[in-house]
């Protein structure tokens, strides 16, 4: 018999008995004693919760807003919409004469009196305008009036506005031109009556042109812009709440005292910044048939005032059970650094995603109210 194989068999047999093992259990945990490591949860109320002026960028959003609304809580908000179009017209269309043009507006948003009759004025835009990086309080100079007013009910979801025959005749060549995109500068939509701001869907709204030979071309919206004017006339906002509003602003500014004794130098397992929505104030100040949409989607950004750097930490947190909860790995990283006395940011800002383009409203309580914004931290102690 070969001795090396005897040895090998012996070793394998021994090793087989040795490698049979189980996961470590809590056997011996009594010897460890009070060594800590037990996670705990602590709520840190917002140290400061204040308004931060905003210049919301509303160009080329999913919708454009127009109208004017008096909100007994917030005052008067006036919105003006600008839209421009493009089309790929057929040869038959271009060879004929435009007979009728209809502006089709698909309403998908309402803020204000749900029973209102709304009258809008339509003006031509004399020059090209930009919808990129335009602040919400921008004013663009309009051109000639096309329609003094067209009226519709706040409940209507599709508004079709035939444009005057003289305007059609005057713009016949432009509408059929290959240079339509540069020769035509779009419309301005402003309000003349009705206590509501309405929003029209940019994808579903269009300009419909029909020639004498019944060739039809749909001019889709190529760009849109909404601008706002906010007046605090008659506003009655309680002093213990902070308004956060899409479109006009303001956005919220938050700071927390993370370096308090109970939290500093601890390991962060989880952090959730929670914004309880103040709904009772809104409910108490809402007239009959008045619709005031709640701002239910928000971004949380971290801002370093010193360097001017800012970064979105949580995108599109949504309202659930009366609370908007912000949570992400990026937020955890930032808060962990704050717990260790670093200052990657000076404060948080809360703002609506620019793409939504609404006038939606969120009220939050100002500290020291119990339901003021808070940061809920799950921590593991670093000491024993």
């Amino acid at each position, binding site marked *: 018999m070969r001795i090396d194989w005897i040895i090998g068999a012996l070793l394998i047999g021994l*090793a087989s*008995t040795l490698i049979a*093992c189980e996961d470590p*259990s809590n*056997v*011996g*945990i009594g010897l460890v004693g009070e060594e800590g490591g037990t996670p705990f949860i602590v709520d840190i109320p917002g140290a400061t919760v204040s308004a931060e002026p905003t210049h919301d960028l509303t160009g080329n959003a999913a919708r454009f807003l127009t109208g004017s609304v008096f909100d007994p809580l917030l005052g008067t908000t006036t919105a003006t919409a600008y839209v421009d179009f493009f089309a790929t017209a057929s040869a038959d269309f271009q060879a004929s004469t435009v007979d009728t043009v209809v502006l089709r507006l698909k309403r998908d948003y309402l803020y204000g009196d749900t029973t209102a009759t709304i009258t809008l004025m339509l003006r031509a835009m004399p020059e090209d305008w930009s919808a990129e990086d335009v602040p919400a309080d921008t004013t663009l100079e309009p051109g000639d009036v096309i329609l003094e007013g067209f009226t519709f009910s706040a409940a209507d979801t599709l508004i079709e506005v035939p444009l005057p025959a003289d305007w059609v005749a005057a713009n016949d060549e432009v509408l059929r031109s290959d240079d339509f995109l540069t020769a035509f500068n779009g419309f301005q939509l402003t309000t003349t009556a009705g206590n509501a701001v309405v929003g029209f869907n940019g994808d579903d709204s269009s300009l419909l042109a029909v020639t004498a030979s019944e060739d039809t071309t749909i001019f889709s919206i190529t760009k849109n812009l909404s601008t706002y004017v906010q007046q605090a006339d008659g506003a009655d906002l309680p002093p213990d709440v902070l308004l956060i509003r899409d479109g006009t602003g303001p956005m919220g500014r938050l700071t927390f005292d993370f370096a308090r004794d109970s939290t500093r130098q601890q*390991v962060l397992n989880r952090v959730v910044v929670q914004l309880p929505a103040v709904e009772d104030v809104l409910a108490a100040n809402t007239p009959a048939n008045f619709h005031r949409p709640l701002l239910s989607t928000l971004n949380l950004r971290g801002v370093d005032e010193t360097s001017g750097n800012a970064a979105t930490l949580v995108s599109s947190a949504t309202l659930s059970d009366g609370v908007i909860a912000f949570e992400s790995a990026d937020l955890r990283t930032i808060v962990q650094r704050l717990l260790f006395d670093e200052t990657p940011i000076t404060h948080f800002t809360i703002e609506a995603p620019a793409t939504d383009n609404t006038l939606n409203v969120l009220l939050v309580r100002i500290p020291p109210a119990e339901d003021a914004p808070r940061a809920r931290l799950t921590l593991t102690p*670093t000491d024993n």
Partner: protein
Amino acid sequence: MSVAPLTPLRLLRAGLLTLAVLMAAPTAVHAQEGTDGSIYSRYGLGQLGSFTSAQAHAMGGGGLALLSYNYANTANPASLSDQVLTRASLGLTYQTLEATDVSDNLSRLASGSLQAVQFSFPLRQRRLGVGVAFKPYSRRNYRVAVDSELTDPDRDEPVPYAISYQGNGGLQQVDVGLGYRLNRHLSFGATGSFLFGLIEDARVTTFEDPAYDDAIVTESTRLSGFTGTLGAMLTVPRLLSSTDLLAVGASVMLPVSLDGDRVRTFGESLDRDTLGTVLSGSATLPMSARLGLAYTPNSRWTLIADGLYEPWSSFESSYTFSGYDPAGTSRFTDRLRFSGGAEVVPAGDDLLAPYLRRVAYRIGFYYDQAYIQPTSSTELHTVAGTLGLGLPTLIPGTRIDLTIEVGTRGTTERALVRELFYSLSANVNIGERWFNKRKLR
């Protein structure tokens, strides 16, 4: 039964097989990590090592007075004087440990580790020799976990989590020794030792829910310092018969002051952040006194008995260790270790005897009273038995040693844990003639 002798090729194959089995085993099972050892290694500087040589290990450890043609004995620098061959040895050990508490809960752990690397050579045969060794002085390798639940107001159900307490690392020891034989009875030696290492205690809080990050907090203590060992050996031939030899060995390792830094960090190993400041400090380890006897009645039998005493009650440190608080009470106590063992080589000096008669068969035991008391006035005892084979090869002076150790440590009383451990050690011990002076004939 005829047994083929080990050729160099077979020797290599058996050695590789041995190492492969041992090295592959730790990665074969999930739970087998470097931290899967005795919970008692959590205390003090960890579990103290006692390896001296493969031969002595299979005879219960110790072996302070062992003199052997086949093994270098770095335990006693005086024995370095008695060398003929240049030697190199490498030992690995693999241990399975079963821990039981008073409720009969069982935890089974396994770990592999380096036993020692040794190199020695004679400057003058049987007169003056040098030895270099690297081996663990202490080892921290425990892991124990507790499951619990966190009540989070944001969750309908409690959030399960586990806290795992883990220790790893330990102190390593590098020895450089010199032994000198004064006359046919008396040898002296001295060893300079550098102790260094990193002892880590980690606390890992883990959640099943990915919304919660795990928390790893580690306390790392880096220590280093120099010390020395003085040894003496007295050999008395023909004490009871014309063929016997009695050897008495003694050594004292001097107290050592280790300087160090302690830092607390959090995060994974490669991405740690420091918590607080680095604490500089020191720890003074006590002296270690050993006494050993070896009696060789003839060329077939060797009997040994050893004792060790370390007054750890005098341990001082500016750092807190489990069981030791510089500002409070210390549960360190004096360490005692007794061991005994026997070796028989049936063939004696007959190199032409059948293979199995040239194998060295070893047996031993030891008792160890640990230097820490897990709870107040509760001593920690380890009792173990050893069995070993010393397999000769066709290369004179070269052996493969296999040792099995089975022992028990602790008790389930007073909320302690009783550990039953089994270990398998493999040691390759190579000896060759180097530095021969050529002579003109």
